[in-house]
C-alpha cells in the first residue's frame, strides 16, 4: 500500500515550526541546573524505644488481667450457693426475732393446740350470751312458709 501521496512528497519532513534562537542550548543548560536533588529513601529503621520493645508484653499482661477480672465478675454475679436453712440469709426475719414485742405477740413456742381451740370456743360463747331457741324455731318456721 502506498503510504504517502503527492502532497506529502512535496512537503517532505518540513513542519514549518521554529524555535527561538538558542532555545535548545539554553534549555539543556537550564534543565541540567534545575534538576531537583533526589533524597534517597531512608532504608535504615529507627531504633526501637523502650515502650515499643515492651509493648507486646504489656498488652499480653493486660489481656490476661482482663480475662481474670471477667471470670471474677462472673463468679460474683452467680454468687455462692444459698443456704436456705440459715436464718442469717433472711435479714427481715432476724430483725423481727430480735424484737421482744414481736416475739411476745406472734411466737407461741409452747402453745397447746387443743387448749387454744377450747379458749377460742369459750370466748365465742361468752360473747353470744343466752340463746332463746323457741324464738329461733318460730322464725325459721315463718321463713319457710
Amino acid at each position: 500500500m502506498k503510504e504517502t501521496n503527492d502532497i506529502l512528497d512535496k512537503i517532505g519532513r518540513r513542519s514549518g515550526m521554529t524555535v527561538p534562537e538558542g532555545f535548545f542550548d539554553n534549555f539543556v543548560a537550564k534543565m541540567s541546573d534545575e534538576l531537583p536533588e533526589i533524597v534517597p529513601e531512608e532504608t535504615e529503621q529507627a531504633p526501637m524505644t523502650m515502650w515499643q520493645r515492651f509493648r507486646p508484653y504489656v498488652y499480653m499482661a493486660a489481656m490476661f488481667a482482663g480475662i481474670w477480672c471477667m471470670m471474677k465478675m462472673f463468679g460474683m454475679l452467680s454468687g455462692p450457693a444459698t443456704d436456705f436453712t440459715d436464718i442469717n440469709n433472711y435479714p427481715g426475719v432476724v430483725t423481727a426475732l430480735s424484737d421482744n414485742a414481736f416475739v411476745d405477740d406472734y411466737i407461741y413456742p409452747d402453745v397447746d393446740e387443743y387448749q387454744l381451740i377450747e379458749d377460742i370456743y369459750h370466748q365465742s360463747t361468752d360473747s353470744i350470751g343466752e340463746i332463746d331457741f323457741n324464738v329461733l324455731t318460730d322464725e325459721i318456721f315463718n321463713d319457710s312458709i
Partner: protein
Amino acid sequence: MPRFTDKDSPELIERLRDASRARQAFTEVIAAYTEPLYWQIRRMVANHDDANDILQEVFIKAWTSLENFRGDAKLSTWLYKIAINESLTFLARERRRNNVSIDDEAAMLINAIEADTNIDGDALALELRKAIATLPEKQRIVFNMRYYDELKYEEISEILGTSVGALKSSYHLAVKKIEEYFSRLD
C-alpha cells in the same frame, strides 16, 4: 529536525543507575534527547511555550522516577512514553479548561496552530499541521511518529503498546484523511 534515534548505551544506563554518577549521566540524556522530544511534543500541542513547559515536566518526571526505569526497555522508548503521556494529559487538561469535547479537539488545535508565532512561513507545511490536527488522537500520534520521526512500526508498537497491524492500519487511515483534507482545499 533530528530523527528520534536511540542514543542510550549500556554504559550510560549503568551510570544512570549509580547514584553518585546519575546526575552527570542524566545531563547527557537531556542533551541528547531535548531536541527530538521537543519536536514530538510540539507536534502534539502545537504551541512552543506549552511544548517547552511539557518538556521540562518530562525530564523532571524521568529524573525523579529514574529508579522505575528497569533497563529492559530502551531509554528512548521510556522517554517517548513519558512525553506522549504528558502531552495527552496536557491536551485533556486544556479540553476541560476550554470546555471542549474530544471530538472538537481539532478546532482547539487548529486555533493553537494559527496562533503559533514560531513558524517559518511555509504555508503548505502549516496546512499539513492543520490536516494532522483533524485526525483522531491515536492516528495523529502514529502519523507523527511514522512520518516525521520515521520510527519503525515495531518501535511505535513498543512505545504505544499497540500491535503492528493496528498501527499500519492507523497510519494508512491517517494518510487517507490527509489526502481528503487537501483535496477539499483544491
